[in-house]
Protein backbone atom coordinates (compact mmCIF):
# COMPACT_ATOMS: atom_id res chain seq x y z
CA UNK A 1 0.00 0.00 0.00
CA UNK A 2 1.43 3.34 -1.01
CA UNK A 3 1.89 5.92 1.68
CA UNK A 4 -0.37 8.96 1.38
CA UNK A 5 1.07 12.44 1.03
CA UNK A 6 1.03 14.60 4.15
CA UNK A 7 -1.49 16.89 2.50
CA UNK A 8 -3.92 13.98 2.06
CA UNK A 9 -3.37 12.86 5.65
CA UNK A 10 -3.93 16.41 6.92
CA UNK A 11 -7.13 16.76 4.86
CA UNK A 12 -8.53 13.44 6.03
CA UNK A 13 -7.66 14.25 9.64
CA UNK A 14 -9.42 17.64 9.37
CA UNK A 15 -12.51 16.08 7.73
CA UNK A 16 -12.65 13.40 10.41
CA UNK A 17 -12.17 15.74 13.39
CA UNK A 18 -13.89 18.89 12.19
CA UNK A 19 -16.35 18.29 9.32
CA UNK A 20 -17.92 21.40 7.79
CA UNK A 21 -21.23 20.73 9.61
CA UNK A 22 -19.41 21.14 12.93
CA UNK A 23 -17.25 24.03 11.75
CA UNK A 24 -20.22 26.15 10.61
CA UNK A 25 -23.25 24.79 12.50
CA UNK A 26 -26.76 26.17 11.96
CA UNK A 27 -28.26 24.79 15.18
CA UNK A 28 -27.16 24.55 18.79
CA UNK A 29 -28.60 22.56 21.71
CA UNK A 30 -31.46 24.41 23.46
CA UNK A 31 -29.41 25.02 26.63
CA UNK A 32 -27.21 27.43 24.63
CA UNK A 33 -30.15 29.89 24.60
CA UNK A 34 -28.91 31.57 27.77
CA UNK A 35 -27.16 34.90 28.31
CA UNK A 36 -24.22 33.18 30.01
CA UNK A 37 -23.31 31.52 26.69
CA UNK A 38 -23.07 34.94 24.98
CA UNK A 39 -19.89 36.11 26.70
CA UNK A 40 -17.49 34.06 24.59
CA UNK A 41 -18.62 35.70 21.37
CA UNK A 42 -18.78 39.10 23.13
CA UNK A 43 -15.09 38.62 24.00
CA UNK A 44 -14.32 37.92 20.33
CA UNK A 45 -16.36 40.99 19.28
CA UNK A 46 -14.35 43.17 21.69
CA UNK A 47 -11.12 41.61 20.39
CA UNK A 48 -12.16 42.49 16.83
CA UNK A 49 -12.69 46.13 17.86
CA UNK A 50 -9.27 46.11 19.57
CA UNK A 51 -7.56 44.83 16.40
CA UNK A 52 -9.46 47.26 14.14
CA UNK A 53 -8.79 50.35 16.28
CA UNK A 54 -5.21 49.14 16.88
CA UNK A 55 -4.59 48.94 13.13
CA UNK A 56 -5.77 52.54 12.72
CA UNK A 57 -3.52 53.66 15.59
CA UNK A 58 -0.55 51.78 14.12
CA UNK A 59 -0.95 53.29 10.67
CA UNK A 60 -1.61 56.85 11.86
CA UNK A 61 1.00 56.91 14.64
CA UNK A 62 1.33 58.63 18.03
CA UNK A 63 1.83 62.10 16.51
CA UNK A 64 -1.77 61.76 15.27
CA UNK A 65 -3.51 59.98 18.13
CA UNK A 66 -1.95 62.22 20.80
CA UNK A 67 -2.90 65.49 19.08
CA UNK A 68 -6.10 65.23 17.00
CA UNK A 69 -9.58 64.84 18.50
CA UNK A 70 -10.39 61.92 16.17
CA UNK A 71 -7.06 60.36 17.17
CA UNK A 72 -8.03 60.69 20.84
CA UNK A 73 -11.37 59.06 20.04
CA UNK A 74 -9.76 56.05 18.27
CA UNK A 75 -7.22 55.80 21.11
CA UNK A 76 -10.09 55.74 23.61
CA UNK A 77 -11.98 53.21 21.48
CA UNK A 78 -8.89 50.95 21.64
CA UNK A 79 -8.60 51.42 25.42
CA UNK A 80 -12.28 50.84 26.24
CA UNK A 81 -12.48 47.84 23.90
CA UNK A 82 -9.70 46.32 26.02
CA UNK A 83 -11.66 47.03 29.22
CA UNK A 84 -14.74 45.34 27.77
CA UNK A 85 -12.59 42.49 26.37
CA UNK A 86 -11.29 41.68 29.85
CA UNK A 87 -14.69 42.10 31.53
CA UNK A 88 -16.38 39.79 29.00
CA UNK A 89 -13.51 37.29 29.12
CA UNK A 90 -13.57 37.10 32.93
CA UNK A 91 -17.38 36.64 33.00
CA UNK A 92 -16.92 33.95 30.30
CA UNK A 93 -14.27 32.36 32.55
CA UNK A 94 -16.58 32.45 35.60
CA UNK A 95 -19.41 30.87 33.60
CA UNK A 96 -17.17 28.10 32.25
CA UNK A 97 -15.58 27.48 35.65
CA UNK A 98 -18.91 27.00 37.43
CA UNK A 99 -20.23 24.69 34.72
CA UNK A 100 -16.93 22.72 34.81
CA UNK A 101 -16.41 23.30 31.10
CA UNK A 102 -13.47 20.90 30.94
CA UNK A 103 -15.95 17.98 31.08
CA UNK A 104 -16.48 15.78 28.00
CA UNK A 105 -12.87 15.67 26.85
CA UNK A 106 -12.68 19.47 26.73
CA UNK A 107 -9.54 19.82 28.88
CA UNK A 108 -7.44 21.23 26.03
CA UNK A 109 -10.16 23.80 25.26
CA UNK A 110 -10.10 24.95 28.89
CA UNK A 111 -6.27 25.12 28.96
CA UNK A 112 -6.08 27.02 25.65
CA UNK A 113 -8.53 29.57 27.09
CA UNK A 114 -6.41 29.92 30.22
CA UNK A 115 -3.27 30.47 28.11
CA UNK A 116 -5.10 33.10 26.02
CA UNK A 117 -6.13 34.83 29.28
CA UNK A 118 -2.51 35.03 30.54
CA UNK A 119 -1.22 36.16 27.13
CA UNK A 120 -3.92 38.85 27.03
CA UNK A 121 -2.58 40.27 30.28
CA UNK A 122 0.92 40.42 28.76
CA UNK A 123 -0.48 42.09 25.63
CA UNK A 124 -2.42 44.67 27.65
CA UNK A 125 0.67 45.31 29.78
CA UNK A 126 2.84 46.05 26.73
CA UNK A 127 0.01 48.31 25.51
CA UNK A 128 0.23 50.38 28.69
CA UNK A 129 4.02 50.60 28.16
CA UNK A 130 3.79 52.08 24.65
CA UNK A 131 1.40 54.96 25.33
CA UNK A 132 4.44 57.28 24.99
CA UNK A 133 3.35 59.46 27.89
CA UNK A 134 4.28 59.91 31.56
CA UNK A 135 1.88 57.12 32.53
CA UNK A 136 3.77 54.55 30.44
CA UNK A 137 7.11 55.90 31.70
CA UNK A 138 5.99 55.46 35.30
CA UNK A 139 4.64 51.94 34.67
CA UNK A 140 7.86 50.90 32.89
CA UNK A 141 10.14 52.12 35.67
CA UNK A 142 8.00 50.48 38.34
CA UNK A 143 7.83 47.21 36.38
CA UNK A 144 11.54 46.95 35.51
CA UNK A 145 12.48 46.20 39.10
CA UNK A 146 10.00 43.34 39.18
CA UNK A 147 11.28 41.86 35.93
CA UNK A 148 14.92 42.33 36.96
CA UNK A 149 14.33 40.62 40.31
CA UNK A 150 12.71 37.73 38.42
CA UNK A 151 15.88 37.46 36.29
CA UNK A 152 14.20 38.14 32.94
CA UNK A 153 14.90 41.87 32.63
CA UNK A 154 17.59 41.29 29.98
CA UNK A 155 15.17 39.43 27.70
CA UNK A 156 12.02 41.42 28.48
CA UNK A 157 13.22 44.99 28.90
CA UNK A 158 10.15 47.04 29.76
CA UNK A 159 12.02 50.32 29.34
CA UNK A 160 12.89 49.43 25.71
CA UNK A 161 10.09 51.15 23.78
CA UNK A 162 11.01 49.48 20.46
CA UNK A 163 10.89 46.00 21.97
CA UNK A 164 7.59 46.62 23.75
CA UNK A 165 6.06 48.23 20.65
CA UNK A 166 6.94 45.25 18.42
CA UNK A 167 5.73 42.77 21.05
CA UNK A 168 2.44 44.67 21.35
CA UNK A 169 1.67 45.25 17.68
CA UNK A 170 3.21 42.16 16.07
CA UNK A 171 4.29 39.15 18.15
CA UNK A 172 1.68 39.04 20.92
CA UNK A 173 -1.38 39.81 18.71
CA UNK A 174 -0.24 37.13 16.22
CA UNK A 175 0.12 34.48 18.94
CA UNK A 176 -3.07 35.64 20.67
CA UNK A 177 -5.04 35.56 17.40
CA UNK A 178 -3.76 32.08 16.54
CA UNK A 179 -4.55 30.69 20.00
CA UNK A 180 -8.02 32.29 19.95
CA UNK A 181 -8.66 30.61 16.59
CA UNK A 182 -7.50 27.24 17.96
CA UNK A 183 -9.70 27.77 21.05
CA UNK A 184 -12.78 28.45 18.89
CA UNK A 185 -12.02 25.46 16.61
CA UNK A 186 -11.78 23.24 19.71
CA UNK A 187 -15.20 24.51 20.85
CA UNK A 188 -16.56 23.73 17.37
CA UNK A 189 -15.06 20.22 17.46
CA UNK A 190 -16.36 19.22 20.90
CA UNK A 191 -19.54 21.31 20.87
CA UNK A 192 -20.59 23.82 23.52
CA UNK A 193 -20.35 22.29 26.98
CA UNK A 194 -23.78 21.34 28.40
CA UNK A 195 -24.91 22.43 31.87
CA UNK A 196 -24.07 19.90 34.59
CA UNK A 197 -27.73 18.87 35.05
CA UNK A 198 -28.63 18.94 31.33
CA UNK A 199 -30.92 16.25 29.97
CA UNK A 200 -28.65 13.80 28.16
CA UNK A 201 -31.18 13.53 25.30
CA UNK A 202 -30.57 17.19 24.55
CA UNK A 203 -26.79 17.23 24.48
CA UNK A 204 -24.37 16.57 21.70
CA UNK A 205 -22.00 13.77 22.53
CA UNK A 206 -18.44 15.05 22.73
CA UNK A 207 -16.07 12.74 20.92
Amino acid at each position, binding site marked *: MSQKMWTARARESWQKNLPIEKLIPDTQP*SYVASWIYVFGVLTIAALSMIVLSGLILAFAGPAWYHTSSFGHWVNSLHFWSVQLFFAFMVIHLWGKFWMAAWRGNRFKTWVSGAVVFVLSIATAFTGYLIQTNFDSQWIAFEAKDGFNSAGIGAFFNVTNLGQMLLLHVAFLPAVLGLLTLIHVLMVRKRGVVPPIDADSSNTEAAK
Partner: protein
Amino acid sequence: MSGWISNFMNHPATYLKAGWIQISVSNLIVILLMLSIFVLAILLPFPNKHSDEDAK
Protein backbone atom coordinates in the same frame (compact mmCIF):
# COMPACT_ATOMS: atom_id res chain seq x y z
CA MET B 1 -13.09 66.92 30.51
CA SER B 2 -15.54 68.84 32.59
CA GLY B 3 -17.87 68.42 35.53
CA TRP B 4 -17.77 65.57 37.98
CA ILE B 5 -15.74 63.32 35.65
CA SER B 6 -12.77 65.71 35.70
CA ASN B 7 -13.08 66.10 39.47
CA PHE B 8 -13.15 62.31 39.77
CA MET B 9 -10.30 61.61 37.32
CA ASN B 10 -7.93 64.42 38.35
CA HIS B 11 -7.50 63.22 41.92
CA PRO B 12 -5.76 60.21 43.41
CA ALA B 13 -8.05 57.19 43.78
CA THR B 14 -9.95 56.68 47.03
CA TYR B 15 -8.97 53.43 48.73
CA LEU B 16 -10.96 51.29 51.13
CA LYS B 17 -8.93 49.40 53.71
CA ALA B 18 -9.98 46.61 56.07
CA GLY B 19 -7.03 44.86 57.66
CA TRP B 20 -4.81 43.43 54.93
CA ILE B 21 -7.44 44.03 52.22
CA GLN B 22 -7.05 47.26 50.29
CA ILE B 23 -9.00 48.14 47.15
CA SER B 24 -9.74 51.33 45.24
CA VAL B 25 -13.39 52.37 45.01
CA SER B 26 -13.10 52.31 41.18
CA ASN B 27 -11.89 48.71 41.13
CA LEU B 28 -14.56 47.69 43.64
CA ILE B 29 -17.29 49.24 41.44
CA VAL B 30 -15.98 47.40 38.35
CA ILE B 31 -15.84 44.06 40.21
CA LEU B 32 -19.36 44.52 41.61
CA LEU B 33 -20.65 45.49 38.14
CA MET B 34 -19.10 42.35 36.61
CA LEU B 35 -20.56 40.14 39.37
CA SER B 36 -23.98 41.76 38.79
CA ILE B 37 -23.76 41.10 35.04
CA PHE B 38 -22.74 37.48 35.75
CA VAL B 39 -25.74 36.91 38.04
CA LEU B 40 -28.13 38.65 35.61
CA ALA B 41 -26.77 36.54 32.71
CA ILE B 42 -27.75 33.40 34.62
CA LEU B 43 -31.12 34.62 35.88
CA LEU B 44 -32.55 36.66 32.99
CA PRO B 45 -34.49 34.70 30.35
CA PHE B 46 -33.01 34.69 26.86
CA PRO B 47 -35.33 36.47 24.37
CA ASN B 48 -36.86 34.67 21.36
CA LYS B 49 -35.84 31.30 22.64
CA HIS B 50 -36.03 29.04 19.61
CA SER B 51 -37.74 25.68 20.00
CA ASP B 52 -38.64 22.83 17.70
CA GLU B 53 -42.32 23.72 18.14
CA ASP B 54 -41.71 27.20 16.70
CA ALA B 55 -40.03 25.75 13.64
CA LYS B 56 -43.00 23.50 12.83
